[in-house]
């Protein structure tokens, strides 16, 4: 509603300009030319005044629109580094708002203040090295400050992930994401090869690598543990994509043929966020921010941040890739078959249960081993 009012205001403003200018024309008659052939500026007064009006309305509009839209900004980041970049962002914004306002005000004020007056002569003022030095040095100092804080944050964010980070692989494709978990027995992802991709093995998991046996894949969501470093290994299998987790302040391109990575620590769970926003439907989301074709705008992946215990529980319930597609046992080299059998479903349902319990128990041991 308020926008409608604003729109109408604009139209009216434009109309006012039109009317004023028409009046000017009528009052002045057709373009006055003084005796010495000098053309007197037409409409100078109202244009000068418009700069003042624009300045005042602009300032009001700036403050008002900010207050009005702020409510829909993303909430404070849910990741450790995200809060740091948030702070840095708002700090830089505050610093830069000062020149934004001052310079624009000077520009509009001077335009109004020094408008043409008959008989007045402008001041011949071609240079002043002191002044120029001042306004070279001051921006340079401010820039140095911003570079320094930005560089420190950037280096920390881009540093190597801690050894104990939980590793996930996320692969973009037209138009969706595949997530591969390192499985319950070791915190290691098996190899992949794009030539192995087929209708079932969508990520090209290489089953001649024993680390792949306990890996599992999901397409609808990514579960990560709370308060624990998480390392995303990012790749794409067809064109460029980009992993964007707005609430975590995470973004990294997914490039075919060149794996990338990003690590972070989420420190607010989905449940906490639901409570905080008083919105039971809230979900963290992962989006694509590199144009990748028709479905670019709809590559939603849910991100579920949960405490470590429930995360482990969820992990244990998942079926490994081999369990889902036992046919792929054929691709396992003979010397590793025995090991792989552990992750494949047993023929008889009677044996299946004990089998999966073993897998769970083993999972607990395996992961704790990798913590070391």
């Amino acid at each position, binding site marked *: 509603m308020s*926008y409608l009012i604003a729109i109408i205001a*604009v*139209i009216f403003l*434009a109309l006012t300009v*039109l009317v004023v200018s028409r009046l000017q024309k009528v009052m002045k008659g057709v373009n006055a030319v003084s005796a010495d052939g000098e053309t007197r*500026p037409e*409409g100078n007064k109202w*244009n*000068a005044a418009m700069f003042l009006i*624009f300045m005042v309305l602009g300032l009001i509009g700036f403050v008002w*629109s900010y207050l009005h*839209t*702020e409510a829909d900004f993303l909430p404070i980041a849910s990741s450790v580094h995200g809060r740091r970049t948030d702070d*840095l962002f708002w700090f830089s*914004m505050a610093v*830069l708002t000062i020149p934004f306002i001052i*310079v*624009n005000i000077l*520009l*509009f004020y001077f*335009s109004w203040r*020094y*408008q*043409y*007056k008959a008989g*007045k*002569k*402008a001041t*011949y*003022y*071609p240079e002043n090295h002191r002044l*120029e030095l001042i306004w*070279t040095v001051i*921006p340079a100092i401010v*820039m140095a400050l911003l570079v320094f804080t930005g*560089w420190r944050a*950037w280096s920390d*964010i881009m540093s190597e992930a801690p050894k104990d980070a939980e590793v996930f692989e996320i692969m973009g494709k*037209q138009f969706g994401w595949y997530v591969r978990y390192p499985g319950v027995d070791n915190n290691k992802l098996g190899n992949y090869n794009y*030539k192995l*991709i087929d*209708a079932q093995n969508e990520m*090209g998991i290489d089953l001649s690598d024993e680390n792949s046996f306990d890996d599992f894949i999901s397409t609808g969501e990514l579960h990560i543990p709370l308060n624990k470093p998480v390392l995303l290994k990012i790749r794409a299998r*067809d*064109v460029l994509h980009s992993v*964007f987790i*707005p609430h975590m*302040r995470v*973004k*990294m391109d997914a490039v*075919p*043929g*060149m794996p990338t990575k990003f690590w972070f620590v989420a420190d607010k769970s989905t449940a906490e966020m639901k409570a905080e926003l008083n919105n039971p439907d*809230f979900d963290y989301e992962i989006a694509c*921010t590199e*144009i990748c*074709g028709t*479905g*670019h*705008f709809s590559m939603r992946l849910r991100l579920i941040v949960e405490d470590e215990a429930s995360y482990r529980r969820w992990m244990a319930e998942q079926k490994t890739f081999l369990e889902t597609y036992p046919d792929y046992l054929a691709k396992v080299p003979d010397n590793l078959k025995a090991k792989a059998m552990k992750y494949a479903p047993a023929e008889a349902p009677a044996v299946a249960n004990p089998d999966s319990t073993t897998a769970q128990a083993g999972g607990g041991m395996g992961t704790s081993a990798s913590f070391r």
Partner: protein
Amino acid sequence: MSTLSTGTDVVVYEEEHVHHDDPNFWRKYIFSEDHKVIAKQYLITGIFWAMLGIAMSVVFRIQLGFPDADISWLKPVLGQWISETGKLDPNFYLALVTMHGTIMVFFVLTAGLSGTFSNFLIPLQIGARDMASGFLNMLSYWFFFTASVVMFASLFLQTGPAAGGWVVYPPLSALPQAHLGSELGMSLWLISMALFIVSQLLGGINYITTVINLRTRGMTFNKLPLTIWAFLITAVLGLISFPVLLSAALLLIFDRNFGTSFYLSEIYIAGEALPNVGGSPILFQHLFWFLGHPEVYIVLLPALGITSEIIATNSRKPIFGYRAMIASLLGIAFLAFIVWAHHMFVTGMNPFLGSVFMFLTLIIAVPSAVKAFNYITTLWKGNIVFTPAMLFSIGLVSFFVSGGLTGIILGNSALDIQLHDTYFVVAHFHIVMGAASAFGFFAGVYHWFPKMFGRMMNNTLGQIHFWMTFIGVYLVFFPLHYIGIAGFPRRYYQFTTYDFTSSYTDLNMFVTVAAILTFFAQFIFIYNFFSSIFTGKRSPQNPWRSNTLEWTTPIKPGHGNWPGEIPAVYRWSYDYSKPGAAEDFIPQNVPYSQTLESNLPHENEEIKMEAEIEAQNFNDQFDQPH
């Protein structure tokens, strides 16, 4: 050379002039080698592309602001791209975004702006009969024209024009099976751009040669108007960076058609693993942005040059800090080549490299700041005349400041993680590049229209046009910052898939309405421009009481610009409101010996140089028998 022999040369020239002056219609208006005609050709083509490009943006803004609207009424124009239910096809949405970007950046703000004003003003302001090579200059336009025809034709393809964004990143753009817009449309895009680059190179070589070799007597580099400095540096930027884009495009053509793997590696698409390995999509981005960043300055610097001239003239004051203005132009141009990777902070490049590029990027803010401050000081204690050109120049300064400041945020790689490829970037570059350069373009047209057509544009309509556009641009692009801070990604067909983009439906609507109003305001300009060509008031000799040389030519300069000798130049072009002078301007061709009352002490020294200047070679192309 003695005065006597120059005198004879002039006679020769006048004889030659007679048989020069009578070309047939085709040679005079179509395949003309006269820089003024070529400039107008660029201008008209640029205006055509601008209207088309902006109209495209209105269509996709409607999609973003009113996603549920039934736009069947566009079916007569867009045909198959509107579905049965009156919805815009998502593929065509991307095609529109891509074409809008390509057209506005390359065809309007590069060719339309530089092509018009470098061509028109360089010979007139440095005192030359024409460009160094009129033929290459003509060729430059016709390459651009051909590029335009190819690009225009691609709009009508069954599969649509290119649709991978104006940056055409592979593999999307390299694989026809990946995207409708990567089929024939992409091939035509590449061909068109290759032709376009040839055109830019031909033009650029000409601008540089002309400025270096054909300046009139006394027009030393420290007397050149800032417009010419800006055009010269722009041409150098283009000459160095456009060939890189050409090679990037050629390699992409190879990957598309000849099975090479420059940009392709480990790809599985459409149920098939491609054989290509070892290429790198990131390589393309490096090549593209090595042009792409200088390109944004190729677009902006001519506008800044035009503004410098207009602000000084209409403030009736010398430009403040002439030398600092040149130094900052040079600084910006140099830095423009070593900041390109700030467009690639989150492509997974080495973080150390990211730090280096952040550092270099933020340095570029310093010369930019100097320019802004110098403009403002030029206004201070001026006697400002608000011609439409002046209004647009002031608007440009405001945009340059407002948009440049957000560049400092984006140049900070830590902050760019969140902001990259969101609407924050869209807001940044539309204000600092799109709107600022467009305002430079308008300013230039309003200012030099009398020289181009011998008539004046309507002043009041120009002022109304300015206010509607100035307010409109801020209303359209300022809110995009908010949308960007909220994380909305760019190039999204709609925002309904995600919860985090479910807000701001009314703000998007507002932006769309503002965009439509601003679009319609441009018809005031179109009307004013075309009607003034035929019915505008006749222009006086020097309508803005300006110092530069173009106003010493006849009101409608003919072939060769000056009927007699080319005037010599004795002073810089910014002697406005000089203390002691009777008038508030002293044109560049007035010697110091005639202005004893207003000369500064060191200028009296220069009086003895005058004989020397006058004795110099005429440097007159038409003096040579040819």
